[in-house]
């Protein structure tokens, strides 16, 4: 298979403009004859549904939540980047592009990332017009802050709820199209398979989560906007329902899965407190601006943090990276925390935590100032842990947070399956090996508002595939496969809950394919995952029946997919014999820092499914850099914190 990214020719800054004029159009009268299926109602899915509905397409939107407004984009706190340069501090489209490419450790496409930076401007305009209440200054203009160590202030925010407000903007626009009859909404519905006819994506198989009914939905194109797969680690900052099933089922139908090993770990989360833990909560990274991170020098020190004298504390980030200390990049800070905990110097229950101490900042600036800056985060911390962060240090630990990998897509956001488009976190396209803070929201909305409306029309205009019907045998066959899979799960009637398998899988993945990876750990994972999967299919117990609301069954189906997908993730990590971005292989480092191998690994690894237990085929899309030089991410100076 030859991977063609379909990057337009011409100068970088003109590629998208030129491409837009080259794309074929659909006449208004014909748009309403095109049925578009969208799965997922986060920023990418909802913005696509709203925009396509406005254009006159017939849109059907599916989500597993009871309301589309609850999709997990809602939880993003920090903000959204845009190269508006409102602050006159030297920002530009080129600079945002360069920061994103470099932050992604040179594993993303130049053309895609440049387009993302260009579209960032339109996103902010659009959202303000929708009534997103961004923070403003006293003159009534939009306020910005710098985020994640960026040198310019280009992050727009709505308190600590930027994701919620942007999602509500997209959701409301979508609901307007629902009112106009252009979009039809199917909440509480899970997508369980993708249907191809004549090689084109022509529909999906869904399960009604209230009645358990399995049915077919036919369409002329399918858009997956189903988010990331951090929950393969069981514990992550993702919502409980986030899953890999939609994109994994598409992968099993022939869509290529790109760079699954590129996962991001966020350093400032509230640590695990026990085995019952169901998820991890992220606290904004901005806390590291004033908090100092430390652990006791002595292993196994159980004294109260306030009783540990200054000279018995190890401010390990300040010690190891004196030039930028506590503001070290996400991956560096995360790995350093893991190291000290591996030395049994971690704090809190279970010993997987480090202190984030504000006592010095409070002395310097006063409690009031700190409370003004981070009050809501201190409250959240106290609500969860019962501890007061002003009086004793907070405890933090890294947690899986975002997945850069996803289904392979070309410049049009279409996968290798014609008619199957993938948007937002579900695709692999823009963040390379590491995503910058405040860029996820930007990508989701760029894909949904400003890219798919152009590229999907071109597909309809050029593919000219006949309409499909749910009576087609391909639909019947896929429905039967889904029904049989569910029957099989229900008939195991073993002794262990599905969640217990998910937890076991999560531990194996976190220990072996988490923050640091080695050949040995990855081989362990590749051995353990199929063992857990085998036991799952022999010993899982699922309560109840299919024909009712059955949350245990919903969850078990998702876990069954994670148990297969985990192997792909580990395999990709094993094959990528370099360290880059969120992927850190202990064998490939220089003085403790990640060592990229551009000669051999400057490619997108796109995997083709070959059956369970068989090794998938690796396809390589080489990455070319015409406009930027592939530099080493340097951690040496204060001006370079990406």
């Amino acid at each position, binding site marked *: 298979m030859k991977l063609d990214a379909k990057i337009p020719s011409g100068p970088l800054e003109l590629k998208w403009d030129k491409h837009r004029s080259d794309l074929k159009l659909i006449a208004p009268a014909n748009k309403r004859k095109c049925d578009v299926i969208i799965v997922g109602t986060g920023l990418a899915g909802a913005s696509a549904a709203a925009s396509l509905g406005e254009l006159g397409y017939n849109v059907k939107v599916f989500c597993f939540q009871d309301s589309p407004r609850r999709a997990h984009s809602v939880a993003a706190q920090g903000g959204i980047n845009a190269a*508006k340069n409102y602050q006159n501090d030297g920002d530009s489209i080129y600079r945002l592009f360069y920061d994103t490419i470099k932050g992604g450790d040179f594993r993303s496409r130049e053309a895609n990332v440049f387009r993302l930076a260009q579209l960032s401007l339109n996103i902010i305009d659009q959202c303000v017009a929708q009534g997103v209440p961004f923070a403003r200054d006293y003159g009534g203009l939009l306020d910005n802050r710098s985020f994640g160590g960026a040198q310019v202030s280009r992050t727009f925010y709505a308190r600590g709820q930027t994701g919620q407000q942007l999602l509500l903007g997209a959701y409301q626009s979508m609901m307007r199209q629902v009112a106009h009859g252009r979009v039809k909404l199917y909440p509480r519905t899970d997508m369980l398979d993708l249907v191809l006819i004549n090689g084109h994506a022509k529909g999906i198989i869904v399960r009604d989560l209230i009645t358990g009914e399995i049915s077919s939905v036919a369409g002329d194109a399918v858009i997956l906007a189903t988010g990331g797969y951090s929950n393969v680690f069981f514990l992550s900052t993702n919502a409980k329902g986030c899953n890999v099933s939609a994109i994994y089922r598409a992968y099993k139908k022939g869509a290529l899965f790109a760079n699954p090993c590129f996962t991001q770990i966020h350093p400032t989360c509230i640590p695990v407190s026990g085995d019952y833990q169901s998820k991890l909560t992220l606290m904004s990274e901005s806390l590291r601006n004033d908090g100092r991170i430390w652990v006791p020098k002595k292993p196994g020190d159980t004294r109260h943090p306030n009783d540990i004298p200054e000279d018995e504390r190890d401010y390990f980030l300040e010690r190891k990276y004196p030039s930028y200390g506590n503001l070290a990049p996400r991956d560096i800070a995360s790995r350093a925390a893991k190291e000290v905990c591996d030395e049994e110097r971690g704090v809190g229950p279970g010993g997987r935590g480090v202190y984030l101490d504000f006592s010095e900042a409070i002395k310097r600036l006063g409690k009031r100032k700190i409370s003004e800056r981070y009050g809501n985060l201190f409250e959240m911390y106290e609500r969860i842990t019962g501890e007061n962060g002003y009086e004793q240090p907070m405890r933090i630990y890294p947690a899986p947070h975002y997945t850069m990998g996803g289904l392979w897509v070309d410049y049009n956001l279409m996968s290798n399956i014609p008619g199957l488009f993938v948007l937002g976190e579900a695709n692999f396209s823009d963040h390379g090996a590491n995503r910058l803070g405040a860029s996820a929201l930007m990508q989701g909305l760029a894909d949904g508002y400003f890219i798919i409306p152009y590229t999907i029309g071109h597909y309809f205009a050029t593919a000219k595939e006949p309409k499909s019907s749910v009576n087609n045998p391909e639909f019947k066959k896929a429905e039967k496969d889904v029904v049989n899979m569910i029957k099989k799960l229900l008939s195991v009637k073993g002794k262990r809950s599905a969640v217990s398998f998910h937890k076991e899988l999560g531990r194996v993945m976190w220990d072996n394919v988490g923050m640091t990876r080695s050949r040995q750990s990855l081989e362990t994972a590749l051995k353990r995952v199929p063992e857990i999967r085998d036991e799952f299919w022999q010993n899982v117990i699922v309560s109840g029946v299919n024909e009712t609301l059955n949350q245990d069954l919903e969850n078990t189906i998702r876990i069954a997919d994670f148990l297969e997908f985990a192997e792909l993730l580990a395999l990709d990590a094993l094959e990528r014999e370099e360290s880059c971005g969120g992927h850190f292989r202990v064998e490939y480092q220089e003085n403790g820092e990640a060592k990229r191998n551009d000669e051999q690994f400057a490619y997108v690894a796109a995997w083709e499914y070959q059956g369970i237990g068989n090794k998938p085929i690796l396809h390589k899309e080489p990455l070319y850099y015409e406009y930027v030089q592939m530099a080493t991410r340097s951690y040496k100076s204060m001006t370079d914190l990406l």
Partner: protein
Amino acid sequence: MNLTLKVWRQKDASSQGYLETIEAKDINQYMSFLEMLDVVNEHLIVEGKEPISFESDCREGICGACSCAINGKPHGGHKGTTTCQLHMRYFKDGDTIVIEPWRSRAFPVIKDLIVDRSAFDRIIQAGGYISVNTGGAHDANSIPVSKEIAETAMDAAACIGCGACVASCKNGSAMLFVAAKVSHLNLLPQGKPEKDYRVKNMVTQMDEEGFGNCTNIGSCAEVCPKEVDLKFIAKMNRDYGLAILKGESRHKPDTISIQAELSELPID
């Protein structure tokens, strides 16, 4: 600690519900309330019994999915806290905890603790948006919005659509939810052109969904996990009154029908 749970069990929308007594053993104070239910459910599943169905997703207090009334109080009654953020340190060994679904005519029970809140989506659909198509928006800074207005709009926009306001109201009124969205959009200059249609259409839809009237008791704002202020109800009433006085047609002309007519024309 060991607890006795009295949990609302209801097979489906048409079945009769009842309170079932379930023992929750070996619960520790660091668990969240929903993690406690997870632990109980895992025992039930392994014992071959039906687990308790309850809704949750983000588990960090922002998605609005979680929804139980705990000892009669939506979200358990702690200031600014959703059920998913409530922790077991507020309970002690031997406690009996009554867990029920939201109770309201407009929120029918689907199963156990899960209710149907789609009425909220239909209210938004009736006017909870600004009619602006994608593309063509002018520069974001072209209309200044005073900080005060932006902040107040954000206070209202913070609503997570959980429905606690309805569940706590003796009238089952959705006024706080509707007022929050009306105020958010009506306050901003971008939302002004549709101000009157919006408030009338949303209020009409709210009434059609079977929510009760508001008698200014304020229990809604008391239990709201995002602390949305009661003053927004006053603002909505004012907007509604003004809109009625202006006497415009109740429903706004359906813009799409114009577009649909256009697209009937044979252009290809």
